[in-house]
């Protein structure tokens, strides 16, 4: 097959160059030039202006909180699922992919109906004589939207990593006298690291860069870095500034990629 691989790979190599490499090059070109085409770093240093810095800081904060919540919710869940019978494997994956068949914007909008002052959740809370929650159009609602949308991307890699752990290894640890806590921290947790890293990447990056969730659940007042970039492209038409800010955003994404390359060499933590 070796002789054939050159021309067999041609379509995909060509496709990746035209639609992946060159477009990324375009961002760097626009981000590092001004409207006259002269080289400048202004679009990058623009991140330091008060407005942009605030947006980036808020994005980082909310996405880190969401990632942490996703991890804390997903890990016990993945452990429970991984201990179930093997025949349910595809069914479990299905449960988490199925919601994607309802439009993502509508699903997020539905949280408005659920969270509103006189919404579904508050009606239930009133009925149970519990205090109402009032988080719509606040950063809390954005975090909830992020956790809701990206939780499956944390659960699936964790589930994959945990269900691959050989039960004999765990049994061996028990036989050798390790308690549940000891087994968890010395055996299960280290063996699930590829899944953890992959899950963190898959939640953190979309959460950091979203502009939709903040638009739908945060009212129009809360600006994340994604909103700022989106507005530069669709409303302000300042592609140079938008590209410059995207480059800043990519620094965080690349740091994340490096981390996942270091910890997950064989790509074991995939969601499939």
């Amino acid at each position, binding site marked *: 097959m070796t002789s054939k691989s050159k021309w067999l790979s041609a379509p995909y190599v060509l496709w990746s160059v035209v639609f992946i490499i060159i477009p990324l090059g375009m961002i760097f070109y626009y981000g590092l030039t001004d409207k006259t085409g002269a080289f400048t770093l202004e679009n990058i240093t623009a991140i330091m202006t008060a407005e942009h810095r605030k947006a980036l800081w808020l994005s980082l904060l909310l996405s880190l909180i969401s990632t942490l919540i996703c991890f804390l919710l997903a890990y016990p869940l993945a452990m429970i699922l991984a201990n179930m019978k093997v025949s349910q494997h595809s069914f479990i994956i299905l449960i988490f992919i199925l919601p*994607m068949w*309802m439009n993502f914007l509508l699903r997020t909008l539905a949280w408005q109906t659920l969270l509103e002052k006189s919404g579904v959740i508050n009606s239930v809370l009133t009925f149970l004589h519990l205090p109402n929650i009032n988080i719509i159009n606040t950063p809390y609602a954005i975090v909830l939207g992020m956790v809701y949308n990206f*939780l499956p991307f944390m659960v699936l890699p964790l589930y994959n990593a945990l269900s691959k752990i050989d039960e004999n290894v765990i049994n061996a640890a028990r036989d050798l006298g390790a308690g549940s806590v000891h087994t968890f921290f010395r055996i299960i947790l280290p063996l699930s690291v590829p899944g953890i890293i992959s899950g963190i990447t898959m939640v953190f990056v979309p959460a950091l860069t979203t502009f939709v969730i903040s638009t739908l659940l945060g009212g129009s007042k809360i600006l994340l870095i994604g909103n700022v970039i989106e507005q530069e492209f*669709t409303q302000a038409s300042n592609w140079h500034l938008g590209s410059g800010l995207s480059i800043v955003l990519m620094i965080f994404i690349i740091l994340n990629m490096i981390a996942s390359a270091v910890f997950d060499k064989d790509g074991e933590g995939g969601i499939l």
Partner: protein
Amino acid sequence: MRNAARKVYIALIFIFLYAPIVTLMVLSFNASKTRAKWGGFTLKWYSSLFQNRDIMEALVNTLLIAVISSLAATVIGTIACVAMSGMKRRTRSVLLGVTNIPMLNADIVTGISLMLLFISFGFRFGFGTILLSHITFNIPYVILSVMPRMKQLNPSTYEAALDLGASHMTAFFKVIFPDLLPGILSGFLMAFTMSLDDFIITHFTKGAGVDTLSTKIYTEVKKGIKPEMYALSTIIFVTVLLLLILVNTAPGGKNDNKDNKEQ
């Protein structure tokens, strides 16, 4: 006791994931036009849906783009996997690294990078640009689900087929393809789902006048979502649900399950 706690936990997560979906389904039967109050049960949105040309057009666009882009991505991705299996280790890891870029990169960055490409090279924004973008972000899903299957293949069977007089084409379709099929199918389904659910990349690469369901919903957010949208998404969701139940209970579905188990 521990078992009960586990079940409660799963149930809570399940409610969290599916509460918005149930909400949307309920809203599709709501006679009142606003989301905020319940105006009684009605089926009128389901009948007016099919008279709404805008929504029907967006639906056709969405489905066409999802079908064509996932098919194209499946063909390109599968061929790429076959090609990569014959490559040197280093070349392959470079190519796989590039493949990972659209997966790991933020959708907004992928979206604007493609937008800048299309602008710079004078593409006319519309159906075509959306399609090219969707193929681009769909290929990695195909490659990532076919590649593990490719690694499990025994190259001697292919060579044996050639020795026994099969042409390259026959050997591929009779020997390699059947082994790859489960991976190809799951890659295709994943790509189709991602294409259908995409908003961000479409938002940046669509032109004026062309809409998919996602972009249509986004423009309606400020004016208020038309209740027909809830009806349509309920129909889509229930259709998929029924199809999946059918596939999983049909006799052919069992083979599929067995294949998944092996992965």
